[in-house]
């Protein structure tokens, strides 16, 4: 029995140790650091009794970054869902070259975010980019894509959507392909047109897949920062800063380790709470769809 116990410990140890080193220790360390005044001038683990959190409450730039994230993540995931679902429906039935199409759709997803953002930066370049060139040809004045808040949002969201819609499509397509044929035959026999079939049959049947896809993407999108870094660097001003990017500025650029610790803790808790509530709401919304309409 004790030998068995020893073996268990032996085999579990490497995994547990890694887990501890890369997740638990940094987490605990962050908690500790958050209550210190550690910064580049005085790297010391003192105790400042929550002064960082008081400062955070009054840090308008942090809270607006959270707001930016809500708009960016919510908007992109919603658009991704709609477009992804539409594309999945389009290639669901027999389409020539379906396999090739599916692979092509996945390319954006596999691109490194930084590379992709750099490419898009070029695309959106005010005087050299093809986007403004095309707009000019149809008589629209050049848009300051990356230097004015509104267009900067559009640019950021375009890039995110371009990158992640294929993922959404893939999930929805997998869902569609796993659906039974019979309800669709029955709907045809009952005389339902394409729209009604979608609304009353396809959509309810896909509700569980929809919930999963939306939640996965929301979790992913809540971490959005690399695209922002490369494309707008949070600008103009701090108009497109997300918490992830703001944390990077405070923690790594300015080396305000203690303050950044408190920010990231808050960010973590906020995200956990928000995503839990959102998933619960989504599940409930779609379950009623599933059971009672």
């Amino acid at each position, binding site marked *: 029995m004790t030998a068995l116990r020893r073996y268990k410990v032996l085999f579990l140890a490497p995994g547990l140790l890694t887990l501890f080193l890369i997740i638990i220790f940094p987490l605990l360390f962050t908690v500790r650091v958050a209550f210190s005044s550690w910064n580049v001038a005085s790297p010391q683990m003192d105790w400042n009794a929550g002064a960082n959190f008081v400062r955070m409450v009054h840090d308008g730039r942090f809270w607006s970054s959270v707001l930016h994230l809500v708009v960016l993540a919510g908007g992109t995931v919603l658009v991704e869902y709609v477009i992804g679902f539409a594309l999945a429906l389009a290639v669901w039935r027999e389409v020539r070259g379906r396999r090739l199409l599916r692979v092509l759709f996945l390319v954006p997803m596999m691109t490194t975010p930084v590379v992709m953002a750099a490419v898009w930066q070029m695309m959106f370049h005010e005087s050299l980019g093809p986007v403004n060139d095309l707009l000019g040809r149809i008589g629209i004045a050049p848009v300051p894509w990356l230097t004015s808040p509104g267009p900067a949002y559009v640019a950021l969201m375009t890039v995110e959507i371009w990158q992640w819609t294929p993922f959404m499509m893939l999930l929805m397509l997998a869902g569609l392909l796993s659906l039974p044929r019979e309800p669709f035959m029955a709907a*045809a026999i*009952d*005389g*339902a047109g394409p729209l*009604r079939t979608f609304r009353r049959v396809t959509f*309810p049947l896909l509700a569980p897949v929809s919930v999963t896809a939306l939640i996965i993407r929301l979790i992913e999108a809540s971490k959005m920062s690399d695209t922002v870094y490369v494309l707008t660097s949070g600008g103009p001003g701090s108009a497109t800063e997300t918490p992830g990017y703001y944390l990077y500025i405070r923690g790594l650029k300015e080396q305000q380790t203690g303050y950044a610790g408190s920010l990231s803790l808050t960010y973590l808790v906020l995200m956990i709470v928000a995503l839990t509530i959102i998933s619960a709401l989504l599940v409930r919304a779609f379950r009623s769809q599933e059971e009672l*309409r």
Partner: protein
Amino acid sequence: MATLTLENVAQTYNPGEDPDRWALKPLELTLESGRTYALVGPSGCGKTTLLNILSGLVTPSHGRVTFDGVDVTSTPTRLRNIAQVFQFPVIYRSMTVRDNLAFPLECRGWPRSRIEERVRAVAEALGLADGLDVPASRLSADEKQLISLGRGLVRDDVAAVLMDEPLTVIDPQLKLSLRRKIRQLSDEFAPTVIYVTHDQYEAMTFAQELLVMSEGRLIQRGTPEQLFESPSSTFVGWFVGSPSMNFLRGTLERGAARVGEHLIDLAWSPPVPHGSEVTVGIRPEYIRIVDGGSHPGDASETSVHGRLVAVQDHGESRVCEIQVREQQVAVKVRREVHVPKVGSFVDLGLPRSKCLPYVEGRLATCGD
């Protein structure tokens, strides 16, 4: 209700396939308005293909389909106004029982009040009226099948109701009551019904007319009585009836069939030359076991001698298997009739009028 016709309809799933292997060989068929038909045949004989061609789920590779004279060959399913009940219950999981039943009517754009009225009538007929607001996904399999059935019956202007073995998944006990219910509903609403089954009892009790199919061909159509009394081929005789019709191979001799030492009188003499092969077909229900072997039958009966090799108990009746020379004959006797011991020799009485002559697998014509 509509009269459905198939004009030279055939179906192959692989273009260019040898016509002998088509799922459905060219077929001419008229199904009259308001009648109930049963489509029977072994698995893979083309029953479901035929049904799907009628409902439009399959577009036939050849021929024309018309409803009341209107060509619907390329009309999509949803515009054909046809009802189909599948082998497995199909319900809309996201809807209540009421919404499930109302769905086909909503699709036709009926006004709310008329839908409500009609749904209530059908739900009452099916015994579902108490649970109209229950989510359909919570029901048991047979209740779900009732809903599928109900969706087929709510439209009173439906061209035809097609049922593809709708009772397969139902418990034997419930099957009986459900079958009665279907019967009752089809009497009440009188739609044109085409009922696919491999269960011949179901077919015979349900339909006014039976269509027997085999290997993509329509072999015979007729009332249950016609199929039972005069199967047009040995296949139909074998397929319809339980146990199957008996077939005794012999040769024609003076208008009768020579089987070993027996000369079996036939209902009529087939128009083939003396000495050619003829098969005697007789239903197990019509053969009499002659007690003790001492009574000679009268002139309307041929006496045949054989050995009883097995008895199967079917409850209300018994099936005796009797070896006549090297051929087997099944005899169905009512429970109260005395059956001799297995292994003993018995005499069988074969009524002349029930001994049908088959030549090359088909019922011979009456020739002199």
